[in-house]
């Protein structure tokens, strides 16, 4: 434990930014810990890591982390991260989002980042609710559950984050929960190492809003539900589909190799430069190109 604490301290902005804003018992801090352990294990230089977030409880994570950090607008973190990655390819750009952030307001950016297969690591912390604004239903709120804006029960089916990511073109897709903290950091490590668009869904909970409205108990009770209701991929594969549908399936769900956007764009640059040398071109200017 003491060793872990030491590891985290090396990556935290300890001067001003604590205590953090999250509720006691929240899962976001566990994801942050897992992210730190993953980065530490890979041995990345702090200068070479950028963490970009959107808006919501998860959006506050970067401010605590001693990297190049950017807390952007609601849903748009992936678009900011895309520009940053293209400008500074050496950076490992990690994008932390919530479920409403990534899949409602940011849904379009999410599927297009996946389709483009840009080399980013997207961590979606899925608590199935808008926590910061007080518990309104999100695109991952399960059917029939209560939310501040679904007082009579929720009637929209939820988005399956991982399946959506795979369909949209992500090269690496994995899922775990905040109960499985060690497994989570291993999956995040793999996601960061993967070149291409990788997604890690970290299933979490919000005991403060969702848990209270649905009478699910304390954070400990909700944590226990993550433990009881989740299975590994190996176990899931032996199950009947109906049985499996009731479970949170953990593990690497998708891992394929294909060239990422920057690799392909490098070809665009090569083809363009084959026509004219850049410096000569600058000298020639607008009049000289045709």
């Amino acid at each position: 434990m003491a060793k872990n604490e030491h590891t985290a301290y090396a990556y935290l902005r300890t001067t001003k930014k604590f205590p953090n804003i999250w509720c006691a018992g929240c899962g976001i801090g566990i994801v942050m810990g897992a992210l730190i352990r993953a980065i530490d294990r890979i041995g990345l230089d702090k200068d070479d890591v950028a963490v970009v977030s959107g808006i919501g409880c998860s959006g506050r994570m970067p401010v605590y982390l001693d990297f190049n950090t950017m807390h952007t607008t609601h849903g748009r973190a992936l678009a900011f991260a895309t520009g940053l990655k293209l400008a500074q390819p050496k950076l490992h750009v990690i994008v932390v989002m919530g479920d409403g952030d990534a899949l409602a307001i940011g849904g379009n950016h999410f599927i297009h980042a996946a389709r483009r297969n840009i080399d980013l690591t997207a961590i979606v912390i899925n608590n199935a609710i808008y926590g910061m604004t007080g518990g309104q239903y999100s695109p991952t709120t399960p059917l029939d559950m209560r939310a501040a804006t679904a007082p009579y029960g929720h009637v929209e089916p939820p988005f399956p984050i991982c399946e959506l990511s795979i369909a949209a073109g992500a090269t690496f897709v994995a899922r775990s929960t905040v109960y499985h903290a060690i497994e989570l950091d291993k999956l995040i490590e793999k996601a960061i190492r993967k070149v291409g668009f990788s997604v890690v869904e970290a299933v979490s909970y919000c005991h403060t809003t969702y848990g209270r409205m649905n009478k699910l108990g304390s954070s400990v009770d909700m944590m226990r539900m993550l433990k009881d209701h989740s299975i590994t991929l190996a176990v899931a594969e032996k199950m009947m589909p109906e049985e499996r549908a009731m479970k949170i399936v953990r593990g690497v769900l998708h891992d394929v190799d294909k060239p990422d956007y920057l690799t392909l764009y490098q070809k665009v640059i090569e083809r363009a430069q084959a026509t004219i040398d850049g410096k000569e071109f600058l000298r020639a200017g607008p009049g000289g190109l045709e």
Partner: protein
Amino acid sequence: MTVRLMQGNEAVGWGAIAAGCRFYAGYPITPSTEIAEMLSRELPKLGGIFIQMEDEIASLAACIGASAGGLKAMTATSGPGFSLMQEHIGYAAMAEVPCVIVNVQRLGPSTGQPTSPSQGDVMQARWGTHGDHPIIVLYPTSVPEAFELTVTAFNLAEKYRTPVILLMDEVVGHMRERFEAPPLEEVQVVDRMGTNVPPEWYKPFGDTIGDVPPMPSFGSGYRYHITGLYHDPMGYPTQRLDEINPWIERVQRKISNHLDDILMYQEENTEDANMVIVAYGATARSARHAMKLARQHRHHVGLVTLYTIWPFPEDVIQRIGRMARRVIVPEMNLGQLALEVERLVGRHKVIRVNRADGEMVSPQMILDAIEGR
């Protein structure tokens, strides 16, 4: 010097390249698309990046991300896309990230008339975002000016760590004019200020001489935080009034203390004028045509062409107001910048000449105003 016939939109692209722009993210929209097409062809030759994003919101976001990564970045759009970009114009202002946003205006509201000129976004460029922040908006009247002012837009963005908007009329974006291109290496270019203080001393939003803190790029060894929340000198979110107010004041000051550098306008025949036309964009060309005709008829008419419309050049308009009996403000909208002129010279002195149907204000319309018809 090479003489070419060049389109306004193309000149914007060349201006960007000359200014050192190496990142463009955009979404296709008439009448700005030629800028994207031109840069998709030219930027990779210089090792630069062109990317077509999924919408205009993402386009400006990508530009801000790239700018944080150290590249000069631009996007271009038209009314509907400009509306979508407001969120991130505000973000860039709050986070003090340099970027250039080109809006080749079309007739609005809504989808309006995609290929018809309009000056309907003048107030939106100033007040389109929520909240209160200064902004720089430049406005060319011709193809050569589209080139020059694009360079200036980048220079001001980098110098003052601010988003700069280049507003353009469809008619200027699509027109072709004779253009004598300077060798691009001779174009005066300003780069953002870097720093050499030790990283642990660096304050990304600190109070500095000149009010513009230096901005090293992400990945250069200075690890700092950027946010759209009100933040302290380190960039960390704050709710403390003693940190919020100094930020507001500094960001106002960095523009208001440098008006000599930012405000660009041209006065013609104002020395003897008892009537002065205040105009911008393509309408300034109608105004010059009208002024020449009027002076042939011995009317003492002058012209002020505004190249910077925001911040509004209050001093020059006040001086004109003291001097002239009448101030004529022709616009391709229902009267937007006229509100500013009226505020400064008094409503009784201002004659508005407006049309917002997708046609240019004709010299005759202005001449009629001059002659009191």
